[in-house]
C-alpha cells in the first residue's frame, strides 16, 4: 500500500482535474493508508462554521467525505479550494 502522503497527492491531482469520482476514490485510499499508519482520532470529522444556506453539512465524518463530495457540488468546490492547490 502507498503511504498516506502519496495517496494525498493523487487526491490533490484528482481535485485539480475536477474529477469527482477519482477524488472520492483517492480520498478513500488516503484514509485507508492513514489508518494503516495508525494516525487519526477515534471519530475524525471535518467541520465548518457555515450557515444552513450551504448545500453541505457542517460536520462530515472523514469516512463520509467520498460520498458527500460526489453528491454536493458546493462541497466538492470547497475541497478543491482547501486541498486542490
Amino acid at each position, binding site marked *: 500500500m502507498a503511504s498516506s502522503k502519496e495517496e494525498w497527492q493523487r487526491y490533490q491531482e484528482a481535485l485539480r482535474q475536477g474529477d469527482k469520482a477519482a477524488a472520492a476514490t483517492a480520498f478513500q485510499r488516503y484514509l485507508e493508508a492513514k489508518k494503516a499508519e495508525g494516525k487519526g*482520532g477515534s471519530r*475524525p470529522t471535518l*467541520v*465548518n*462554521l457555515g450557515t444552513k444556506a450551504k448545500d453541505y453539512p457542517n*460536520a462530515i465524518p472523514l469516512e463520509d467525505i467520498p460520498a458527500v463530495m460526489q453528491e454536493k457540488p458546493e462541497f466538492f468546490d470547497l475541497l478543491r479550494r*482547501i486541498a486542490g492547490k
Partner: protein
Amino acid sequence: MPTVLALPDFDLSTRCASGWLLRWILPRLEPAHLFGILDRRFAFQFFAPQSDIIIMTGHGGVDVITGQNEAVILAVGKYDPREVRGKVFKLLSCQCGVALGPDLIKNGASSVAAYVDDYVWVTDADLASTPWADKMAATSLMPVIDGINALLDGKTAKEAFTLELEGYTRNAEIEEDELIKSCLEFNKRNAILLGNEGATIRARPKITLPFAPPPILIPL
C-alpha cells in the same frame, strides 16, 4: 465593563469552537457571556454597546453571523451602529470578512478580524464533551486563542492577527496529517484584518491558564 463573548452550542462545530473559547478566553473576561440559549440577538443588543471587544463564534455567511440555532445576531444593514462603534471584533465564522466585516467598519467598528471563506478544521467527534482536549482541533483553534489572548494582553489588532497567522504556519510545518495541514493553510489564506490595524482594547489581567477546572458540557 461587560465583554461580549458569543458562544453558541448546538452542534459539533459550534460546540468545538465555543469549547475552546470557554476554556481559554472566558476566564479572562468580565461577563456577559452569551453561551448556548443566551446567544440571541436581544442579549447582544443589550451588552454590545458596553463592550470594547466583541468576540463571536457561530455559523456565518458573507453578510451574517448567527448565534444559537442560527438565530441572526448581526447582518449587513440590520443593526444599530451604536452596537459596533469603536469596537474590536473577532469573528470566528465562515466568510464574514466578505461583506459583514466591511459593513461593520463602515458603521464605525474599530477593527474586524474574520475569514473570507469557510473556516474549517478536523475534530474528533468523540471529544464533543471535552473539545479542549482535542489535539486535532487544537492545531487550528489554538492560533485563534493565541490571537485573542494577545488582544486581551493589550496588543494591537495587527499584532494579534500576525500571531494567529504565525500559529497556523508553525502548526502546518510540523503537521503530518495532510488534511489538517491543508485546513491550516486554507484558514491562514482566508484570514483578513479590516479597519484600524493599531486598534487596542483595555488590557485584561494576565492569569495562568487553565486556572480552574474545565467547564462541564452536557453531551450533544
